[in-house]
């Protein structure tokens, strides 16, 4: 929504009033601050991804969380010619749907998607959704130079006729200013995705060559579901990943498993049933059995808690990346 009050329309016969003129000036100043301020660069997301996996949503995925604000989504980057980049959208309670695709040419791809034109898959304003990217070629380096939402409502070029001392200033002339100001987007002009802080485990620690680096998230429970996306890369030794919830009542293990290959995982923790669920039928890992046995306490709404992971391996070439940890009202 605009951060300025729009000027009123002018009408022949009315006086040219200071209020109306000042609203044009204030809107112009806001325009400069919002769009043209040279002192601060608006951030664009630059993500270098090794989209190492082939085109399968059950395999390695690259997920980005967005809050729907604008009508269009742009995904642009570089890859190897011929590599097909596909864009999938996932909403609460819905399956993944492909909403865009481009074949890399001249080392680049640029995908623009009209988010409001996806029939039943259009996210509602203010809704959280996830964008996944896949690559048709395996083990290909891909760089995502841009990913952001934007409004595809280009500002109409202002065409004002010149005036001289004998020009009668009429409503047509003045309302061109007003129209152009009123057509400005109502929100900040772009909306980059959110990507969680990535944790990485890749080197041996301790005398026993034992890795125990953990990443921790904390918050106050507001919703029923905690969703986590992470990726693993397995070196010469198995990678063991464990999950814990800490509350003032103590620490509770909620599961662990050995990653068995190069994989991405989506896990959803349902606070109300205290059970891990595995989305998207990810194969290979079996996590969550024993959750109840481990005695995880259901966390009351409004309670402070911490969520943490550890990853253990003897291999210096194993990796554990966390893409994001997201609490949501419904499972995404």
């Amino acid at each position, binding site marked *: 929504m605009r951060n300025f009050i*729009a*000027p009123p329309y*002018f009408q022949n*016969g009315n006086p*040219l009033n200071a209020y109306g003129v000042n609203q044009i000036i204030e809107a112009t100043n806001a325009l400069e601050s919002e769009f043209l301020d040279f002192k601060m660069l608006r951030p664009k997301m630059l993500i270098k991804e090794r989209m190492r996996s082939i085109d399968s949503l059950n395999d390695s995925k690259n997920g980005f969380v967005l809050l729907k604000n604008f009508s269009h989504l742009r995904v642009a980057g570089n890859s190897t010619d011929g590599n097909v980049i596909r864009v999938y959208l996932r909403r609460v309670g819905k399956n993944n749907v492909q909403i865009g695709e481009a074949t890399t040419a001249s080392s680049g791809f640029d995908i623009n998607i009209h988010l409001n034109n996806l029939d039943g898959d259009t996210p509602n304003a203010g809704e959280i959704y996830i964008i996944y990217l896949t690559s048709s070629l395996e083990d290909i380096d891909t760089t995502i130079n841009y990913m952001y939402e934007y409004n595809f409502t280009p500002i109409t070029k202002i065409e004002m006729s010149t005036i001289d001392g004998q*020009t009668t*200033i009429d*409503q047509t002339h003045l309302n061109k200013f007003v129209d152009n100001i009123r057509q400005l987007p109502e929100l900040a002009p772009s909306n980059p995705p959110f990507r969680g802080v990535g944790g990485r485990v890749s080197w041996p620690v301790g005398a026993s060559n034992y890795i125990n680096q953990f990443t921790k998230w904390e918050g106050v429970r507001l919703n029923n579901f905690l969703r986590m996306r992470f990726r693993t890369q397995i070196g010469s030794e198995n990678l063991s990943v464990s999950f814990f919830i800490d509350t003032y009542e103590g620490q509770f293990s909620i599961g662990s498993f050995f990653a068995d290959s190069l994989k991405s995982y989506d896990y959803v923790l349902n606070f109300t049933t205290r059970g891990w669920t595995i989305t998207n039928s990810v194969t290979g890992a079996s996590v969550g059995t024993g959750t109840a046995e481990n005695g995880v306490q259901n966390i009351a709404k409004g309670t402070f808690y911490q969520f943490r992971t550890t990853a253990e391996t003897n291999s210096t070439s194993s990796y554990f990346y966390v893409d994001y940890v997201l609490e949501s009202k419904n499972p995404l």
Partner: protein
Amino acid sequence: MTSKTLSVFLGIDWANSGGDGTDESSRIEEISGNESLSAPDEAVFSEGGYIPQISFSLINTDGRFSTNNASSPIYNNIRDGNFFQKKVVVKLTINSTQTVIFRGSIKSLDETFGTYNNTNTVKIVCRGQEDIYKNVKLSSSLNDSRSNFLTQRDESLIISSILEGIGITVQQMSLDKGLFIIPYFWLDNDSPIEDCWRIASACGGRFYYNSQDGKFYYKNAFYYASLGASQETFTQANVGSAIFDGVDKDLIKKVRVTTRNRRIGKVDEIWSNDEVFSIAPYATKIITAELSNPLITYTGYEFRPTTFSGFSLSNVTIGAESYSNKIVLTIYNGNTNNNVAYVKELKLFGQLLEPSETIIYERESNSAFWSTRSGSEKSLSSNPYIQTYAQAKSIGDIIFDRQTKYNSVLRINNYLGNQFLRVGSRVTVNIPNRASGDFFIVKADWAINSSGLKQNFELLSLSGIYGQSPDSYFIIGTNKTADNKKLFY
């Protein structure tokens, strides 16, 4: 003074035919009326308005207007209070020129029975159409409030929206283009007419019902500069008395305007109900959620329907109808197992329009006039339609220029000319060495009886109505950049 011929037409639409109705002119004993820019004893430029009114006495020897007289030909139209709100029109013909001087509806009917001391008469009081709508209570829909916010409407468009809300058609309105943007608008069981008055006041304009053509008018703040040509010149020859009225009712030293700023809150819980209430199988319960602040977005609800023993219950649904300050919930228990539904932890979510910091614009006169006098302060602090500092400044400056300098007030009684003059009419006063110049009428009352037409007026000088003379402002569509004109407020 030349003599003039007068005739009056009084039409009462007893049968609601939509026309002028039955001609009751022959029964008139006396007819009088009044209108004003503001309510009695209030300053000329006050926040309220004034509803024009007429009253007339009708001869009732044959019992035509007796509400209990079953033999009256209009008995069914007046019995049991049926006379209320019947349409009335009064037309005055002066020297063959006819003018509608009132359109309105019946407010009251008093019957005086014939006695040794009184004749049979009825006295009927009629008021302008805004009297009917003034007591209506209106709540704006969420869509209307949100649409206003998104489209950033001016005061004229908001007034139009309110009037449409009470069934007034566009053909029944005559609205100046607005000069100010009012970002946030809502009605919460409010009087539409009183809110139109408030909006007009917040924008320096005038909202009124024109009892001549039966339309609702909004005149913006430039109203007093565009009153048109003078319609009459008052001289010692055509008025019975002209009185200089030296009152300080509108005179102030300082003006203070408070903006009622708002901001849109985050999406959050906006209402919750801790009570547990039950709904029988296949029954519906309607609950009105009164909100603490106006609603700008409604996003949804949460609740927990259970059986008596606490098990979750399915097929309990909620429909919501959103208004600016309330959400009406229709909860239906469609559970197929004939369970009574116990609705718990009902919560609503959305965005409210929260009060923001107020900003005050104030300006005090330092003129020589006030250096030796104490002056009062005019404060506009409760008008919810002054929402931005820029608007507060414009309105404050208008009031400052208008009321921190003494402005001449004249009272004219027993005007004998051939014009029927109304509030807002521009007139000229020419009483040598006493009073002269352009004025406009702020109050008018009149009476027609066997002695003829008598009109009395209260006038305010036009010269002090704005900081500049009315013709010095830059008019859009008329003036050129080279013209030596000034910006209006």
